[in-house]
């Protein structure tokens, strides 16, 4: 089997998306930590357009953009599927993954905001997460049903990362009182073997 390398940045949830997917599929890989203030020649060679992590290199073929990488992993290692088989169910999964892009924008505003801006960002994030909880997650344990799939992976930042930001900001958004099901989901996510034990280093 061709060699798999992952160029990542430990503090970033995007890199962890790829780590979790590779682990769930049982794929052996070499992890290379990038110093984003001093990017390696390899990173610049493998991701000339964005010059960002994560980048997956399989054999000598690079793939950039975490959501594109996730789909690549799903197709290349079909065992332990992380997307439904049915095209409509897949479309629903992809819709919710895409929705996460908006959520990330709200998350970023929450992370960067202070004072009034922080309050506004927290409100918007809460609104966004309410829709996610009600229509995306519903009463399921995971977005993937009984076990995590690409949708859960794509929302990974709502686990430990969001909790850390909430602590720093002194403002809670994802709570049992406001988002009971999503809060439970985040707790379950953090307990999963592939996720647990990755928090150190933050």
């Amino acid at each position, binding site marked *: 089997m061709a060699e798999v390398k992952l160029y990542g940045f430990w503090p970033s949830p995007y890199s962890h998306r790829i780590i979790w997917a590779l682990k769930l599929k049982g794929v052996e890989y070499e992890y290379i930590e990038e110093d984003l203030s001093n990017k390696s020649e390899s990173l610049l060679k493998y991701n*000339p*357009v964005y010059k960002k992590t994560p980048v997956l290199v*399989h054999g000598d*073929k690079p*793939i*950039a*953009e975490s*959501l*594109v*990488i996730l*789909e*690549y992993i799903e*197709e*290349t290692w079909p065992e332990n599927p992380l997307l439904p088989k049915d*095209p*409509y169910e*897949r*479309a*629903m999964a*992809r*819709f919710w993954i*895409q*929705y996460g892009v908006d959520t990330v924008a709200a998350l970023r505003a929450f992370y960067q905001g202070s004072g009034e801006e922080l309050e506004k960002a927290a409100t918007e994030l809460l609104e966004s997460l309410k*829709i996610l909880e009600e*229509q995306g997650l519903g009463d399921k344990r995971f977005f993937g049903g009984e076990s995590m799939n690409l949708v859960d992976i794509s929302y990974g930042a709502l686990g430990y990362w969001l909790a850390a930001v909430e602590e720093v900001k002194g403002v809670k958004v994802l709570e049992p009182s406001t988002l009971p099901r999503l809060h439970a989901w985040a707790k379950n996510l953090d307990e999963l073997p592939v996720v647990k034990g990755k928090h150190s280093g933050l």
Partner: protein
Amino acid sequence: MDERKYNMAEEVKVFSTWASPFALRVIWALKLKGVEFDTVHEDLINKSPLLLQYNPIHKKVPVLVHDGKVICESLVILEYIDETWKQNPLLPEDPHQKANARFWAKFGDDKVMQSIGGGVLLKEGKEQEEGFAASMENLKYLEEEIRGKKFFGGETIGLADIALGWLAHYLDIVEEIVGLKLIDQEKFPSLAAWKQEFANAPIIRENWPDRDKLVTKYVVVREANLGKGTPK
């Protein structure tokens, strides 16, 4: 066994607007695959109850309804179409080439459209200069990717072509309105050639929205954004 063969009376509906480049993607994909469908024409100032029911979260077009199944978000719809109707595939078989197609489709939406739409069309002065510079950077990457190929998808139109296809019609309109040349034949010869090829391709050439109407529309959008026109 392919169930598609036995399903003669499929109902396929596309909710669209006359101007939307996103809805156009879905129309192209269905037509390229020879799939029969009905178009529901929406007016975004006066959205139909059905649209609001089918897309309550974003309240946008396009929406695809296939035998009662509702799918929103143009790139999600394109993947669904390609998986449901296998003729004239939009994505290659090879996972790495597939990833490449998805990468460029995403680059188009995340970067190219942002810099040209948000950065050039909707701005003026120094901000527009910055938007223009960013657009040049982005177009450079597209130029490198398309070099030596007829389409981003190779010999035939693929997902990335459909996602970037708006450049082959809407860009001329932006250029006319702002008086700036973006895809200059001298600077970006391969991309300019692709533009021609795509704009004149069968199916694509028959479905462009009216150019003059688009100019009028985007002038209004630009002026509203610059605070010159009457806000809607």
